[in-house]
């Protein structure tokens, strides 16, 4: 069974499986880093809102591509813009304005999806929103792979460069501010990195399940880590394992890859929790 999968990987006629595997492995590194920050800073709901808001950008990109013939536009371009915009709004509201943060987050979540679906509905030809919501490996082409690599590098470099600032910010924001660190700026930068990371995985597991792939590997890794960087390394490995396994199994059994990945990840997390509890 597994041979089939490896044969498909090597087959030059079906590059999309190879692309999907590479996309999953590449983005696992930034998912490990940013997913760990998201889990320890407890902002997974922000990641959820950003990923759903990305649909607005995906829809807009598809619309402009087909209606105005902007052939260079890829749905991923739209996703990057919409995710960063959503991140900026959430970041500004939660740091500078005295609004109820969860209300803003919930609104962005829903409004983003609504705008995306409107654009998709008005795009000529048939576009299946399901592909974006639940993932479709056919969406990753050579062009997307390059963009994924670039985003991945940006997230990894900034994540490592500002590791200590982000760690301190997550652990004790007030004290970090007293060390002269512009914490609001760093918080917004962190949410930007969350936005880029979310976009990386949208094509593989889909908008709805991004949040699971961001938090489950990190939460599983957290069970076995005493330090944040250990959690990140482990989370990246778990993420790579989950996406590769999900892709392989979905190919062999003809299951949707996103759902397969998430169910497998969830199972490993629950088993890890039980193992951890029973061993004390």
């Amino acid at each position: 069974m597994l041979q089939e999968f490896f044969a498909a990987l090597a087959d030059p006629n079906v590059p999309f499986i190879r692309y999907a595997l590479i996309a999953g492995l590449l983005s696992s590194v930034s998912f490990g880093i940013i997913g760990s920050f998201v889990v320890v800073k407890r902002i997974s709901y922000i990641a959820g809102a950003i990923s759903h808001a990305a649909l607005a950008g995906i829809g807009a990109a598809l619309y402009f591509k087909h209606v105005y013939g902007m052939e260079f536009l890829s749905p991923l371009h739209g996703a990057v813009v919409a995710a960063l915009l959503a991140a900026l709004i959430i970041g500004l509201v939660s740091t500078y304005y005295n609004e109820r943060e969860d209300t803003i987050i919930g609104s962005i979540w829903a409004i983003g999806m609504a705008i995306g679906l409107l654009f998709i509905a008005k795009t000529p030809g048939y576009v299946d929103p399901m592909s974006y919501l639940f993932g479709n490996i056919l969406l990753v082409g050579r062009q997307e792979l390059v963009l994924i690599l670039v985003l991945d590098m940006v997230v990894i470099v900034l994540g490592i460069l500002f590791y200590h600032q982000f760690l301190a910010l997550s652990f004790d924001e007030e004290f970090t501010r007293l060390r002269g660190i512009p914490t609001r700026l760093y918080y917004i930068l962190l949410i930007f990195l969350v936005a880029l990371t979310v976009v990386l995985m949208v094509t593989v597991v889909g908008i709805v399940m991004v949040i699971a792939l961001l938090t489950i590997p990190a939460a599983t890794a957290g069970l076995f880590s005493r330090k944040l960087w250990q959690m990140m390394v482990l989370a990246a490995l778990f993420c790579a394992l989950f996406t590769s396994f999900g892709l392989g199994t979905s190919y062999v059994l003809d299951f949707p890859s996103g759902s397969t990945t998430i169910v497998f990840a969830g199972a490993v997390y629950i088993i890890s929790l039980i193992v951890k509890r029973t061993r004390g």
Partner: protein
Amino acid sequence: MENGAAINVIEVEHAVFRYSNYTVLDDVSLSIHAGDMVSIIGPNGGGKTTLLKLILGLLEPVSGKVKVYGGSPRKNMGYLGYVPQYSRFDEQFPITVYEVVLTGRLEKRAGFYSKNDHQAAAEALETAGLSNVSDRSFQALSGGQRQRVLIARALAGRPSILLLDEPTSNVDAAVGSMLHELLEELNKTHTILLVTHDVGFVDDITNRVFCVNNHVHEHPADKLDASLISAAYGNQMRMVRHDINLEKSQQ
């Protein structure tokens, strides 16, 4: 340190602070000299923590001035070492004692900690008596140990003033006396400000007591008597006089 020529390391002049339309601190003035061990006492909601945050520069007064070493708290924050309550930290955060203390050396620039930073962190751990647990997980420690880790983190920045928020809340008597000794030792080299509701904890080591209840009054540290308690907690408080035994006096 009790002479008039002492250096004022902290000066608060007619400071007013409001949350929307509730005035927490009204026309507060005080000055703290180098080497003082000050305790700030008062009822909940009286403005103790607000006063501490004004001095730290985390809050700005609506009117009046707060000066640290003659400049603004934000400008001179390097002199200040803040020790919050340990109980407000996330129980699941993956971080070791050493890493917590290193954050006391954090700088604006990106990158890694220097040799000097590591040395300062190691010294701070030594001072706080934590060298043997430096590689342990922060959340695995007892409350008293965690409180000392936060003191070490403040010390790592090599401040000259330490500001502690309720260091003895949620710790038992044995741990309290250990903290007491540590603070007494640190007071030889640092000015110390202590927000506390635990008057008994500090009465023998503090040389000044400020009572905060919207206004600030200074009380002589050697006369912690009924007038001070009622000023601090309002008139509803009854004092338990352990020094008088009624049964015996009635006989």
